């Protein structure tokens, strides 16, 4: 199983793009991480206008925080992160520096 928590700045990701993003990332999970990475679920948090900052300045950066099955090697994880970022930018039109993607192990306690 894989979960994604999306933190997006107000107005940066249209609501009608969400389904396409979720579908695209589900395919990425299956293709790169294998059948153990499905099903995929997602939650969205919209950061209000004037409520998100990067380096102390208003932000347009989205955060994609994934939680994936344990046992992913570093090369596979890097390919996964890169592909998720590419899909995000393709669908939303965001620049590469406007998305931060992470994928932690399912059992990671933090």
């Amino acid at each position: 199983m894989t979960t994604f928590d999306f933190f997006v700045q107000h107005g940066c990701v249209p609501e009608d793009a969400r389904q396409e993003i979720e579908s695209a990332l589900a395919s990425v999970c299956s293709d790169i991480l294998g059948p153990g990475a499905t099903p995929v679920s997602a939650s969205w948090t919209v950061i209000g206008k004037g409520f998100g900052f990067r380096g102390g300045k208003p932000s347009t950066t989205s955060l994609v925080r994934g939680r994936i099955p344990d046992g992913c090697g570093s090369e596979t994880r890097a390919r996964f992160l890169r592909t998720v970022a590419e899909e995000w930018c393709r669908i939303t039109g965001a620049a590469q520096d406007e998305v931060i993607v992470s994928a932690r192990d399912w059992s990671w306690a933090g």
Partner: protein
Amino acid sequence: MPFYRCLIPEDSLTYDQRERIAVAFTDVHCGLSGAPRSFVQVAFLETDGSREVADAYGQGTMKFSTPYFIAGGNRAGRSPDMKSRILEGLLGRFAEIAGISGEMVSGRISEAPASWTMEEGKILPDPGQESEWFAQHARSG
């Protein structure tokens, strides 16, 4: 990578306060850790009275009993003393700028390995390796 979510009551902070807190958090985090300012993300999320938030860097939820809460997420690899100083610094500046007593705000910082995050198409460096990381990526374009 540092991502500080500030859980706040509805309509409790003005834009000016939020901006000042975001700058202060960037100052605290970067001043103590040496991390680049562009790494620091701060988001303010107004709560509906709920006193728990999902741990975006670990698992489960963070529960809290104060009206204001800072849910932090950082790269792993810093000493416990450094982590404690960062959190204390954040809480102190938050209370000062929000105009509240220190007892009204609490926080917790979770951590995950730097290699589990990609920013601008690059895997993040471990804490303390930022200069080499920037130099390496400047060379490679």
